[in-house]
């Protein structure tokens, strides 16, 4: 099933040769990153297995690779948390291929300073340019938070995924953030006056920020809607092939504010009609910063009705859908990082997963129990992580 999935798309067939040997990192060097004091890792462009006991540093290695692609942690950790304790800085380097070209990334972080980023030995002031190099999707134990966690977790997932496909999305988000901060400052000031005077002062200056919030907000909505429309069909397809019957997996975008027609005018009207409420709360109550996604299986909300196992399968389907979507849009699939999947899934699901893995580009999988991955012959590079050291174990188990 898995290998057939990509063939469905005619565009992918054209790129197929490139596609399979698409984006990949071949060599990664880590310095003072979490418990990995100094390590150099050679990776295969296809399937890599990383094994080691719990706490050895397997996930940290994946996190480092994710960081090389996005300058962010897939666990939502801060830069300071990722720096080795007592170290002054951390530093990551990676060599690889993207869009058929050799690419070298270097990132260094020292507390109190800006991240230093170099792409192909040239200093790059903007982190956003990193997003156009190596695209990456991760899946791990923390991803159940996509269902159980706060809405901000889901918005973060949306934003990082879209940023990898649409380079302009980052500046759009940045513009929205700035507009929101200005509008909130104004609502704070006017809200105070509103409380003591009972009247709205300088209402026209609020209108200006309403319009700005609406126009930038709508552009953010559009990008998120486009992304979810493509991904949700793919995700329910993957969900079906992983479970065979478990009911339809549906994701629904709940947009803030809810409108009958999504135009700048309607958005601004909505803000106007809720002005008193916003003044009382002294902050912006509507807009993409309040967006959310709901997931359901067979028409019941995942958060309340699905088992933890079902949620894991659903989020894996979602991540695989993102992999395929990025592949469709960008012409080559991203690097896929799978953290501890063997302990989480039963045999049947794992077989389905390994079927899918063979059609991906570069994959890195961690496991603490080697025997669980033993019958999976797809791996052509096996690494062992032990108390912060990484060693090559070979190409066969």
């Amino acid at each position, binding site marked *: 099933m898995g290998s057939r999935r990509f063939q469905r798309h005619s565009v992918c067939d054209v790129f197929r040769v490139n596609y399979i040997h698409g984006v990949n990192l071949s060599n990664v060097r880590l310095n003072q990153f979490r418990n990995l004091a100094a390590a150099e890792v050679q990776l295969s462009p296809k399937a890599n297995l990383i094994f080691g006991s719990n706490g050895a540093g397997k996930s940290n290695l994946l996190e480092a690779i994710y960081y090389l692609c996005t300058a962010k942690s897939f666990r939502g950790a801060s830069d300071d948390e990722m720096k080795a304790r007592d170290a002054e800085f951390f530093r990551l380097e990676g060599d690889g291929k993207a869009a058929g070209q050799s690419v070298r990334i270097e990132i260094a972080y020292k507390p109190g300073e800006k991240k230093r980023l170099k792409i192909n030995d040239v200093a790059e002031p903007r982190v956003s340019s990193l997003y156009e190099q190596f695209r990456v999707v991760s899946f791990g134990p923390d991803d159940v938070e996509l269902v159980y966690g706060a809405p901000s977790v889901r918005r973060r997932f949306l934003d990082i995924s879209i940023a990898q496909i649409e380079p302009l999305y980052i500046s759009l988000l940045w513009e929205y953030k700035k507009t929101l901060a200005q509008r909130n400052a104004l609502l704070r000031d006017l809200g105070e006056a509103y409380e003591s005077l009972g009247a709205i002062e300088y209402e026209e200056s609020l209108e200006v*920020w309403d319009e700005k919030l609406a126009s930038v907000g709508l552009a953010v909505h559009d990008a998120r809607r486009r992304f979810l429309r493509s991904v949700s069909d793919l995700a329910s397809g993957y969900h079906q092939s992983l479970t065979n019957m478990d009911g339809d997996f549906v994701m629904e975008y709940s947009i803030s504010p809810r409108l009958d027609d999504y135009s700048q005018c309607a958005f601004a009207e909505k803000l106007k009609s809720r002005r008193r409420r916003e003044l009382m709360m002294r902050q912006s109550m509507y807009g993409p910063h309040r967006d959310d996604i709901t997931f359901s299986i067979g028409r019941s909300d995942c958060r309340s009705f699905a088992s933890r196992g079902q949620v894991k399968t659903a989020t894996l389907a979602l991540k695989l859908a993102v992999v395929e979507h990025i592949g469709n849009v960008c012409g080559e699939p991203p690097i896929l990082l799978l953290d501890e999947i063997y302990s989480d899934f039963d045999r049947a699901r794992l077989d389905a997963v390994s079927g899918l893995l063979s059609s991906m580009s570069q994959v890195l999988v961690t496991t603490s129990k080697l025997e669980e991955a033993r019958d999976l012959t797809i791996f052509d590079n096996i690494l062992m992580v032990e108390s912060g050291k990484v060693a090559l174990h070979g190409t066969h188990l």
Partner: protein
Amino acid sequence: MFKSAQSVERLIAELTRLPGIGRKTAQRLTFWILKMKKDDAARLAQAILDVKEKVRRCSICSNITETEPCHICLDSKRDRTTVCVVEEANDVLALEKSGEYRGLYHVLEGALSPLDGIGPEKLRFKELVDRIGSGVKEVIIATNPNVEGEATAVYISKLMKPLRVKVTRIARGLPVGSDLEYADQSTLSKALQGRQEF
């Protein structure tokens, strides 16, 4: 830390307060000034005092000037039917350098920014409205193309609506003489959105 003579330290500290100047640059400037001839140093000091004493804001457009009104507002050859609204006086300088514009200016002395406590009452909007009566046919909004500048532009267009005056916004686009491939993506996308028939 080693400290040099007190007066040297004081000059370094004063220079550090200037925008874009850190301690290292301040030190370099200070030691340069130390090596200057006394006349040259006096001229520099006098130039600084002169700007503070002689330069003020034009009562009409708020541009910086030594005369009242400023030489632009005074110039009878300039087109009095158009007013170009800018955030700061140095924007006037930049536009004047282009030599393209022959109308008058209006300096707002900032842009709307609630985060910095700048609301409409702190900017020269009222003065702008008062000027429209006297034969102005077009208001060109030339505020910066950032979040605050755009919000200010929307505010001006709302203010001008009942006054029946033509309101235009300067175009956003590519820097002339540069290569398309070096333009950043936001600029390119705005330039595409604002394309014109050829």
